[in-house]
């Protein structure tokens, strides 16, 4: 993956220029207030707290909104095993302005899912689901036409596939048949063993990323830090980007979707990394 790859997919400049101009993003601006003349049908919760703080309890870090301790939707105490993750979640809560927009709080949602486990899954089920997904992995499922897209898929997806095959010493392959690729049992077994080394929390994050990117290969590539979030999202949306280049970009749909996918994927990746790290500093022995 090189910068050239990204440059070759540069889109036409947005008609509205840079939307990140200060005037439009200042949350207290008059402009924003007048735009909010249509509120959603469901009652929105207002921000009811001033301060967000952390405390360390047994089992991990807890978050308090003013004096009240945060709980999961299932009623459990919200405890996060990793300090950085707790800080990032606290930042999400602190970032809420007048109303609480839960759909923007991806890390909090992931923590809630891991804590409550509403679908009662265990590690084995999650691993099996991920391996099943490999059979319809975006990167392995190729088109026959148009020729331009076939070439683009080969050019952009083959390197990632080869990287994955080398890294894990497996065969995956791609296919343009409607049945998709044949994933050998040995490959699945290798991945099963690898995924078993992940904790339940990390697997929750990984499952989320796979669902967002629609690809196990891209997810693993990003989790293994071979791809950045932006690269993984671009590769996931390759066909869409190809069509955009032909037919033009609609900011309110294409960009909207892309940034949402980036945010969710980034949250998932961060979640996996923070719940699988053990931050130990190994001291190198100084030789006399």
């Amino acid at each position, binding site marked *: *993956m*090189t*910068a050239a790859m990204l440059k070759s997919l540069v889109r036409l400049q947005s*008609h*509205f220029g840079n*939307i*990140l101009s200060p005037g*439009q*993003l200042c949350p207290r601006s008059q402009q*924003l207030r007048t*735009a*909010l*003349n*249509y509120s959603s049908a469901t009652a929105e919760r207002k921000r009811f707290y001033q301060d967000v*703080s*952390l405390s360390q309890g047994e089992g991990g870090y807890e978050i308090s909104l003013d004096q009240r301790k945060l709980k999961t939707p299932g009623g459990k105490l919200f405890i996060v095993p990793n*300090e*950085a993750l707790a*800080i*990032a979640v*606290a*930042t999400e809560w*602190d*970032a809420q302005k007048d109303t609480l*927009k839960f759909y*923007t709080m*991806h890390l909090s949602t992931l923590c809630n899912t891991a804590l409550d486990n509403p679908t009662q899954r265990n590690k084995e089920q999650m691993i099996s689901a991920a391996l099943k997904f490999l059979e319809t992995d975006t990167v392995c499922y190729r088109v026959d036409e148009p020729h331009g897209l076939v070439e683009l898929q080969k050019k952009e997806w083959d390197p990632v596939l080869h990287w994955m095959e080398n890294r894990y010493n497996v065969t995956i392959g791609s296919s343009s048949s409607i049945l998709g690729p044949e994933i050998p049992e040995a490959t699945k077994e290798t991945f099963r063993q690898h995924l078993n080394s992940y904790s339940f929390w990390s697997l929750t994050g990984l499952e989320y990323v796979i669902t967002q990117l629609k690809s196990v290969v891209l997810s693993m590539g990003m989790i293994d*830090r*071979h*791809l*950045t*979030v*932006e*690269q993984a999202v671009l590769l996931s949306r390759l066909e869409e980007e190809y069509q955009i280049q032909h037919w033009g970009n*609609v*900011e*309110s749909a294409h*960009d*909207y979707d892309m*940034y*949402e996918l*980036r*945010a969710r994927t*980034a*949250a998932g*990746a*961060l979640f996996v*990394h923070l719940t699988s790290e053990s931050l130990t500093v190994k001291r*190198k022995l100084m030789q006399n």
Partner: protein
Amino acid sequence: MAALSSPLRVCRGILKELRAIHGPTYNRSLAYNYVMDQFRKNKQVTAERYCRAQDEANHDSHTYLCLLASSRTHQALHNLYHVKGECSTAQAASMVGLRLPTQPGGKGWEN
């Protein structure tokens, strides 16, 4: 793997996002202290030229910057396009950069 942009740029980017979240007191927030701490710690973890821990930290910082920046951009796009309810034909057209056609001589069926 593509070369990631320098840690300094990423750090600045994250601080910009934190400022957008917290306002002028951003340098007293939890995230600010943690992020600055991490960047200072990871500047020179080992004497090696290629340091895995440093690369990992670099990638993670990019990921967090992507999270913050994309969330903010997505929210801005949401407010720009998906918050207004019904709007006039002229407004809807201007959303995708078009204008309504004009016919200077009138449309024929107007008096």
